[in-house]
């Protein structure tokens, strides 16, 4: 139990997907314009990443069984792409309300390298099934936390007086760097 708790804390704070692993930066800078869109994106990522981690765990077992582990990259990306499509169709049918909330973010997730990255990390760290699910979920929560904090800062930033050359993406990157520094404070939380 203690081990699981540590894994959750580690994946959310200590090795945050954005600030220490550099995964999923494109959506991070793309959709962090307001807090509400970043919450929506975060929820969609939590949903898909947990699911994708679970499924790729079994896919890898299958690949190992047939001795074709070198096909990992190709198979994983196709599985994730079709999973996203499937989730979209199922959500539309079962829960139109949830689809309304997450719908526009789902297609963007296929090209979110955090999903594939976390799936491959799970295999590299040879986690068992429960750990895989926890790590996937925790990483996605970490992504959401980072996204929401950054969106909050950016909403304020729009009102502040920034030198002309630093406007737009330039100041966003420096801001992200400072938040990342703050996140480094968690570095020794879990050994």
């Amino acid at each position, binding site marked *: 139990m203690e081990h699981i708790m540590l894994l959750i804390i580690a994946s959310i704070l200590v090795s945050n997907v954005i600030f220490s692993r*550099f995964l999923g930066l494109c959506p991070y800078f793309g959709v962090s314009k307001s807090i509400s869109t970043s919450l929506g994106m975060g929820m969609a990522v939590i949903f898909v990443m947990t699911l994708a981690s679970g499924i790729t765990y079994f896919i890898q077992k299958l690949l190992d069984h047939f001795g074709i582990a070198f096909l990992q990259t190709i198979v994983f990306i196709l599985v994730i792409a079709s999973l996203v499509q499937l989730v979209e169709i199922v959500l539309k049918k079962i829960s139109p309300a949830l689809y309304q909330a997450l719908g526009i973010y789902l297609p963007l997730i*296929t090209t979110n390298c955090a999903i594939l990255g976390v799936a491959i990390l799970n295999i590299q760290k040879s986690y068992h099934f429960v750990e895989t699910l926890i790590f996937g979920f925790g990483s996605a929560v970490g992504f959401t936390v980072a996204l929401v904090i950054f969106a909050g800062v950016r909403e304020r930033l729009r009102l502040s007086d920034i030198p002309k050359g630093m406007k737009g*993406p330039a100041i966003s990157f420096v801001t992200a*760097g400072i938040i990342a520094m703050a996140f480094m404070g968690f570095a020794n939380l879990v050994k």
Partner: protein
Amino acid sequence: MAHAVKEFSKGIVKENPVFRLMLGLCPALATSTSATDAIGMGLSMTFVLVSSNIVISLIRNFIPDKIRIPAFIVVIASFVTIVDLVLKGFMYDLHKSLGLFIPLIVVNCIILGRAEAFASKNGLFLSILDGLGMGLGFTLALLSLGIVRELLGSGSLFKADLLGPAYPKVIIFILPPGAFITIGLIMGLLNKLENKGGK
């Protein structure tokens, strides 16, 4: 000919994938801790970009429109697997330090973006030039990040100690926060230069 030169050079400055289009940020920030890694990543990326542009521009008339994206992804993923295996076989150290970011070339928006926006609509020759230009632009962006970060963070360049033991190493620059701050400042500098040139 002027047209061809334009397709080649646009990726390097005007539409630089990292500094201008903000694509491919993950590998750009993660693998630019040293100039050597930056070049390794940049060249792997260029190889995948050029090869997938070649194949996609050759088969663009045979792919049904509806399944073109999955088809592109399979082509790209095959080349990424080739790069992964070649690096593992011949340059193990580089493979180890680039790590996760080699398989992640697959989901890099630059490659799929070029396949969709350029190679699927243009002929072989222009597609090769486009891939080369974008790849070189990416490599140069990574290299400039890598040089700044390695010089400030570890006082060396291409793993050779330049500034000597007396230099106080600013370790933050080879850690993640330094990557964000460096790219932000370089973008600011580019904006400044551009504003000056416009006047």
